[in-house]
Each structure stands twice: as structure tokens, then as C-alpha cells.
């Protein structure tokens, strides 16, 4: 089995709404893939198709070589899913909720209790879910998704409502699973978080995939300029430094701070020239285009292509 999850030209229509249009992709085991895209791009629909909650209108989708909507219980046991806006029965406590799901996955009760500790819910475990905040529900949702050491983890906006400290912990938990061979597909709007963590990024728009690559590949393909910021020593004329690169790419932020937008291929040349200036330059900062810029670029390119 080469791919953990593979989709071949899957479409999904809800009445006249085409939520997905001939989407194809394949995810190998042990990869952390981020799914980005504006609201209504089809991210949730795609995740539901992989989990088998809905069936595609066309095309084929496989999870561990099985059709999701009709897969064996063994395969289903190796699947962790966190739905968008996860909901639980309010009348049960956090512990009861997690134990219920653990039993369904034939997971030992001690494991589920240790999961509660890992998501920081031990103190609230005896309280009813009705009294939980949004973030606590989300933590409980993550705990249930992690039950049974899943080989495929599908998370629909997992970090929404989580505090920054726990987000770090969450990514740590996900990374551990990824390192053990779990395929993780998570949809999110928090682009800056994904930038450092995802092995690969899939950008969707209006039911199609507009980009599917690593961050480096996206940068190379997009050819977006890096931002180079110079701080000059006191008494050095800005005009002197301005000659380093074409004026059109330059912007003066402060009397002694200059910013250049430099295409990838010219970057090293420019840096060499800057270094050659010696002590006239006291600080140099190179900022590659962020995922937010790339995201905007690929969404924009998609619009132009149409």
C-alpha cells in the first residue's frame, strides 16, 4: 500500500451546488498535510468523504485501499476524526464521553484517561460537557480523535478555540503520531501556524485544488519576492544604499531603514552586494514570502486562470 488516502477525480454535488469538482490527490503514510482555503472551498466536504460520512457523486476515493463509506470495522478503528464544531451529549461528563468512544474503538479505559491528561482535561473530567467552554470541547474532541493510535487522522479546524499554549501542545501530539507513520490531514485558517509544521499544503478554492506541494515548492512556483530589510549605520546616506537594487523594488521605511522586494533569483546577488558595503549596514533581515502571501497568490492565480 503506497498511499494511505487516495482520491481520483472525486466530485460531490449537493443539489445544484458543486462542492467538489474532480479533485485528485494522494497522501502517503506519515505525512502531515494542511488543507487551506476560503470558506466554502470544500474542505469539510472532502474530509467527510474521506471518513465515509457522505459518498462521492463521481470518482473514487480510498482509505487504506478501501471505500470509506463501506470500509471494514478494522479500517474504521484506525481512523481518527474531529468534525468541524465538534458536539457532544451535554448530559455526560468528559470522562464518560471519552470512555464511551474508547469502548467503541475497543481501547483500554486507562489509555483514554491518560489522553484526558494529555489534553489537559483531568481536572474537568468529572464535569458535564454542558459546562465546558468551546476550547474544552475542542480538547475533548482532540482526545477522542487520538484514541486507538489512528493511522489516519482527519481534523477539521482542530485549533479553533484553542489557547496559544495548548496549540503548541496539540501540534506536538500530532507530530508524534506523524513520526510513527500516521497520515494527518488537517484543515485550518491559521496559516502562520501551518507554515512551520505542515509537510505539505493543499490549497482549495471553489471545489478544486489550486495547489498541492511543500512550502518550498510553492515558493519556487509562485516566484514571489523575498523581503530584505536593511538598517544603515548612523550618518550613512540612504541614497548610497538605494543604488544596491532597482529603485522600483525599494521602499524607505525610516530615514535609516530600507526595504527591498527581491525576486528569488536575484536574492543572493543582492545580499552579496549588501555585505560588500561593510560597516555601512548594521542589520540585515531576509523574510521569505509567508504562507499567507503564497495562499493569496495561488487563490489570485486561480481567479486569473478562469
Amino acid at each position, binding site marked *: 500500500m503506497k498511499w494511505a488516502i487516495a482520491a481520483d477525480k472525486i466530485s460531490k454535488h449537493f443539489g445544484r451546488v458543486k462542492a467538489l469538482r474532480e479533485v485528485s490527490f494522494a497522501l502517503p503514510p506519515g505525512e502531515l498535510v494542511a488543507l487551506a482555503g476560503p470558506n466554502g472551498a470544500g474542505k469539510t466536504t472532502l474530509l467527510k468523504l474521506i471518513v*465515509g460520512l*457522505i459518498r462521492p457523486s463521481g470518482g473514487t476515493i480510498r482509505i487504506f485501499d478501501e471505500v470509506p463509506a463501506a470500509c471494514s470495522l*478494522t479500517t474504521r478503528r484506525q481512523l481518527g476524526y474531529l468534525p468541524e464544531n*465538534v*458536539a457532544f*451529549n451535554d*448530559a455526560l461528563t468528559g470522562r464518560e464521553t471519552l470512555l*464511551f468512544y474508547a469502548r467503541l474503538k475497543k481501547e483500554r479505559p486507562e489509555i483514554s484517561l491518560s489522553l484526558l491528561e494529555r489534553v489537559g482535561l483531568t481536572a474537568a473530567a468529572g464535569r458535564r460537557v454542558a459546562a465546558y467552554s468551546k476550547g474544552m470541547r475542542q480538547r475533548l474532541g482532540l482526545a477522542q480523535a487520538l484514541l486507538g493510535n489512528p493511522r489516519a487522522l482527519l481534523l477539521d479546524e482542530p485549533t479553533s478555540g484553542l489557547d496559544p499554549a495548548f496549540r503548541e501542545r496539540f501540534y506536538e501530539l500530532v507530530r508524534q503520531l506523524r513520526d510513527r507513520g500516521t497520515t494527518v490531514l488537517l484543515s485550518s485558517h491559521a496559516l502562520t501556524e501551518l507554515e512551520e509544521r505542515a509537510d505539505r499544503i493543499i490549497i482549495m478554492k471553489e471545489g478544486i485544488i489550486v495547489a498541492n506541494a511543500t512550502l518550498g515548492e510553492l515558493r519556487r512556483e509562485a516566484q514571489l519576492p523575498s523581503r530584505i530589510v536593511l538598517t544603515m549605520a548612523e550618518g550613512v546616506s540612504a541614497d548610497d544604499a538605494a543604488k544596491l537594487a532597482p529603485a522600483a523594488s525599494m521602499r524607505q521605511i525610516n530615514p535609516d531603514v530600507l526595504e527591498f522586494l527581491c525576486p528569488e533569483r536575484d536574492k543572493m546577488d543582492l545580499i552579496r552586494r549588501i555585505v560588500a558595503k561593510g560597516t555601512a549596514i548594521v542589520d540585515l533581515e531576509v523574510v521569505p514570502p509567508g504562507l499567507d502571501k503564497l495562499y493569496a497568490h495561488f487563490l489570485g492565480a486561480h481567479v486569473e486562470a478562469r
Partner: protein
Amino acid sequence: MNSIFIICAREILLGIRNRWVLATTLLLAALSLSLVLLGSTPTGQVGVGALDVVIVSLTSLSIFLVPLIALLIAHDAIVGEAERGTLPLLLSYPVRRWQVILGKFSGHVLILLFAAVIGYGAAAAALTVTGADLLRQSLVAFMIMVGSSVLLGAVFIAVAYLISTLAPDRGTAVGAAIGVWLLLVLIYDMALLGILVIDQGKMITAGILNTLLLLNPTDVYRLLNLTRSASVSQFAGMMGLAQNAVWSQFTLLAVLMLWIIVPLALAATVFTRRQV
């Protein structure tokens, strides 16, 4: 099998938490006890068990109440979970959808069983305490009444599950549940009676009437309980029907079982096709 048990156990726990178990048990106990207290006066007649009177009153009461309770506790079993958003998560777990239906169904039936045994049992216990003579025969009839009440409840729980899997939202499910209750509990018998009066026995023979009675689970329940023994049917004013009754206890029970299996199987089929 195990998954069914896990889901059933959770349904019972939820029933205890949201007070359905308590409310149903108290309601049935209060009504059956008040019937014992009120009903023991007019017995008068020598040689008739006090329990027979209670059976008649409780049967008539159960025909209205048990279907209503069953529809109430079960109408949102599926559509409620769908609306609260708990359904997608449950269905992503290693359970078959028919197991979800069967697990939740058995949980609801057990809740009703508990309420009926405790609630109606309270009436029998009260009679024992007041020192009334309980004939063995009456006791058997009483137990059949409790058992068939649960069976009647199970029929309506199964029907409620079918409604719950078909309904697009909770409001529709409530409306449909009330509609089914009105139709099977009130309108069917009234319409049947009206037709009989108009027809004056020209078209509708005893055979057709018996078949028509078999089509409605509440009538099956009535036949099962009120025509069993002579003393009971005499009190119930069912002598006429009792004499014409051609259906054996076995047939009546089989019909009730069908009324459980068919809606439940349909519900499972619809639910399996449903996209969440």
C-alpha cells in the same frame, strides 16, 4: 454485538441523566396507583379479583399513554443527534449504522420496561398491601398486561425511529409523531366505529373487522388484554368482540412483533443510506 450493548448502555445513562426514566416511572406509578385507589370501590361483585378491574383500567389507560410516552422519548433519537451535531462523530466510529439503531432502540425499550414494571408493579403491590385477594389467574393476566404494554411501547418506539430517520428536522419529527399517535390511538378506532354504524353489517363482516383490528397495534394490544379472560372482557365491555375474536394469543403477539421489526428494519435501511 458489543457495540450494540455499548450504545444501549449509553442511551440508558442518558435517560437517567435527562430524567426520562424518572418521569416515566413516576407517571405510570402515579396513574396506576390512583386507579387502584379509585377502582377498588366499584368492584362490589363477589368472586371477581380486584386485580381484574385494575387490569381493565390500566389497559385502557396504557393504550393512550404508552404510545405517547414511547413517541416522546424516541422521536428525536436520530434527528436530535443530527441536529445537535453529535451524529457525524458517532458514525465515524467502528459501528455499523444498524447497530446504532438497534443499540439506541434497545436502550429506549429497557427504559420503558423499567418504568412499566416499577410503575404498574406499584399497583399490584398496593393491592397486596391492602389485603385484596390476588387470584393466580389474575396475576398472570397482570403480568401479560405489563409485558404487552412494553411491547406496545416498543412498537411505537420503532415507529418513532422510522420517523426520526426520515424527518429533516426535530419539528417535523414531533409533528409526525403526534400525527401517528392521533391516527393509531384515536382516529382509527373512531373511523372504524363510524364505518360499522353506517355499514350496518352489510359489507363489513366479522372477518373483515377482525383483520382491520389486526392492522392497528393498539387494537392488537386491546385484544390481547381485554379478551383474555371472561371476567376481564366483561368489565371492559369487550364481550362482543371477545366472542368474535378469532386470533390466538400467538397471532396477536406475532403481529406486535412485526410492528416492531418492520419499522425498525425500514429505519435501519433509511439510516444506512442517509448522508450526514
